[in-house]
């Protein structure tokens, strides 16, 4: 299934957001996620089901003013 991760198309074998994030290399990282513009808490990732073409944002702490 193809999904848009941080603006780039990526292929994932997993429909659950939590497993897709691990597959994409985010395992163990301090990140926060949104699916199609809606915040998805860490506790919700395991039961959040992805569909083809979904937009996933994976954000992390960064410098800011």
């Amino acid at each position, binding site marked *: 299934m193809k999904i848009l991760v941080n603006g780039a198309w990526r292929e994932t074998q997993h429909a659950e957001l939590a497993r897709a994030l691990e597959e994409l290399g985010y395992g163990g990282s301090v990140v926060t996620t*949104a699916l199609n513009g809606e915040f998805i808490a860490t506790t919700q990732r395991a039961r959040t089901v992805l569909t083809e073409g979904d937009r996933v944002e994976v954000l992390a702490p960064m410098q800011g003013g």
Partner: protein
Amino acid sequence: MLSLYSTTVRSRLMLGTARYSSPAVLAQAVKAARTEIVTVSLRRESAGERAGQAFWALIRQLGVRVLPNTAGCHSVKEAVTTAHMAREVFGTPWIKLEVIGEDDTLQPDVFGLVEAARTLSAEGFEVFPYTTEDLVVAERLLSAGCQVLMPWGAPIGSGRGLNNLFGLTALRAHFREVPLIIDAGLGVPSHAARALELGFDAVLINTAVAQAGDPVQMAAAFAQAVEAGFAARQAGPIEPRDLAVPSTPLIGTAFRG
């Protein structure tokens, strides 16, 4: 001491963490500024680079409070979603709420700002709204649940200082009990000292320190200016006058009569 919602801090200088030449310089600047609060943000994380992980580890080592922002958000929806994401990652109800309305000046969209502030306050966030010096907008933000206001001094990164002195002074006079933090646009330590002398409770500095020739020395200079400005305010500055008033007593002056 400065009370921000239920938190009390000693330092009246907040520091942004962006645009430093290296993480080491940032860390040294934070220490030189003697700040207790730094602003941070959220950005897309690359699974390969993991830049965010290294940055977050550095910030945690510094032992300061973080004030996450919603920089880059141009709509209420984006800002509210970003705030939720920030609360999860940073573990704080604090949010420096930015809803940008115009890209050339990075002027706040005050209509969206009030709406987002109302939504987030109702959800338990402690909102620090980046706003203008507009009194009516300030009133609306307070009605929306904000207990702190962050009026701009000048456009972000411009270094122009307190651009609308009359408006900012009026804001301070009107809201005597509300913590007011000058956010954005200060360029040199004298701008910060002036803000504190006028009775503002604190300042937030980023570009003026990060882009200085020597950021660490500039951070120390801002710290001194903020302390001097606050002390001067406490000491009670004299009122400006149009005409001279002799400082040397006239009684006993020679050659008179």
